[in-house]
């Protein structure tokens, strides 16, 4: 059985339960009353245009911003816990082990002055890996999985192309086998052919590792390929959610219909 099947079939409870998540900026709404469940092995896409609140929502979910109201209950190893209420050391530990965050700009998610091998090995060393050879082997393996040539292991990311940097960021995040990955516009800023390669890679990794992922993007083609479920946001609120193909092919809400009909066909 793959990891995916194991995780999905064994799941009796959602991996993440979000209830009434709200973040305000004074009188303005960042995001409001967002609720959903995420199960193991599911990929949830969050789409919306600029100002829709999707990035605010992602930051609140990932613990980068403190929400004003609501709960983000994660199924930790010791039972479901509201991460909003967690103290900082625990949350930081969570984001180094069970969680991962892939930034839109890989420079925000990498140490540019450290070699590729060091970048991938850091999370391992942070949880106690102390054998150089083993760390290097794991790093080499992961570079291969994200299709970076093993000979680049001692190069710094500043010498990589944008697509390579993004793949390195993914390797760095996934090396400790997190269960939940947050991605903020993972293909933004990349050439189209590079995007395709990255999407393919992400799909494969999600399936192999039984990952759950929450992906924020404005690109509907990306969600169609990557996400099982979709949430559409406008002005800080979720206006529609459901199966990705259903929301895109049979949109119910006016805004979703507008969004879908605005996409240029190639």
């Amino acid at each position, binding site marked *: 059985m793959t990891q995916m099947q194991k995780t999905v079939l064994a799941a009796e409870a959602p991996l993440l339960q979000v209830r009434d998540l709200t973040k305000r900026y004074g009188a303005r709404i960042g995001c409001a009353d967002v609720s959903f469940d995420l199960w193991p092995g599911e990929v949830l896409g969050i789409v919306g245009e600029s100002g829709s609140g999707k990035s605010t929502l992602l930051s609140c979910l990932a613990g980068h911003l403190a929400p004003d109201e609501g709960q983000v209950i994660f199924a930790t190893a010791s039972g479901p816990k509201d991460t909003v209420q967690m103290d900082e050391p625990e949350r930081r530990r969570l984001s180094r082990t069970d969680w991962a965050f892939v930034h839109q700009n890989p420079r925000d998610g990498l140490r540019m002055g450290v070699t590729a091998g060091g970048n991938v090995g850091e999370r391992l060393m942070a949880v106690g890996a102390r054998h150089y050879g083993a760390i290097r082997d794991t790093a080499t393996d992961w570079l291969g999985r994200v299709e970076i040539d093993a000979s680049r292991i001692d190069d710094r990311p500043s010498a990589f192309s944008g697509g390579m940097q993004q793949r390195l960021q993914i390797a760095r995040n996934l090396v400790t086998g997190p269960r939940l990955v947050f991605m903020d516009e993972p293909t933004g800023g990349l050439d189209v052919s590079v995007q395709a*390669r990255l999407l393919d890679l992400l799909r494969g990794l999600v399936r192999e590792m039984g990952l759950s992922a929450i992906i924020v993007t404005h690109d509907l083609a990306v969600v169609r390929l990557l996400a099982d479920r979709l949430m559409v946001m406008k002005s800080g609120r979720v206006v529609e959610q459901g199966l990705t193909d259903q929301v895109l092919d049979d949109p119910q809400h*006016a805004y979703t219909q*507008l969004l879908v009909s605005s996409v240029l066909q190639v």
Partner: protein
Amino acid sequence: MIQIDGLSKSFTLHNQGGAVIPVMAGASLTVRPGECVALVGASGAGKSTLMRMIWGNYLAASGSIRVGGLDVVTASPREILRLRRETLGYVSQFLRVVPRVPTVDVVAEPLLNLGVPAEAARARATHLLAQLNIPQRLWSLSPTTFSGGEQQRVNIARGFAHRYPALLLDEPTASLDPANREVVLALVEDAKAGGAAIIGIFHDAAARERLCERSVDVSAFTPGLAA
């Protein structure tokens, strides 16, 4: 296996002044294991719409669609995803794939998603591709550059990789030459013999005659037409 009762649907076009277009009312249909039912009716009468609703791609306004016991109309996304993985297959008219993925992996994907080991999944994929006369030299290439007929056959191979208990086929023999058409018909008969409940749309009358015990005219469910 597939049981549809009192199904209705309309489209509300918010960006065209809120125009409401009813497309289906009172649709009912039952398909038993081993049966093949054809959907017939004029173009635009709602054949593909009904198929998409069974698949969960289109929402229903009322009624129920039971596939293997699960009511698709009220099921959660998670349940529908599971249904699509294990129970219900769909061969559409279009092949939509992630660029760059080799054909053999496109076909093997449903099996990989079920946890079948990669080697066995690919073996089944190559077996089907060979049956459908896709040359071996194409197996490692992405199907995005193939001809319409080749893409259709890859689509079919993917649809038959896993032995689904329920199957939706939308024009499976379109764009195919007689030899390949014959292969596809044999695949469908084989699935029937294995107990699959099948709903198909066939413009090819001969294929319809051969495979399907009965036909259902969807114009009967189209509001305004029946009146």
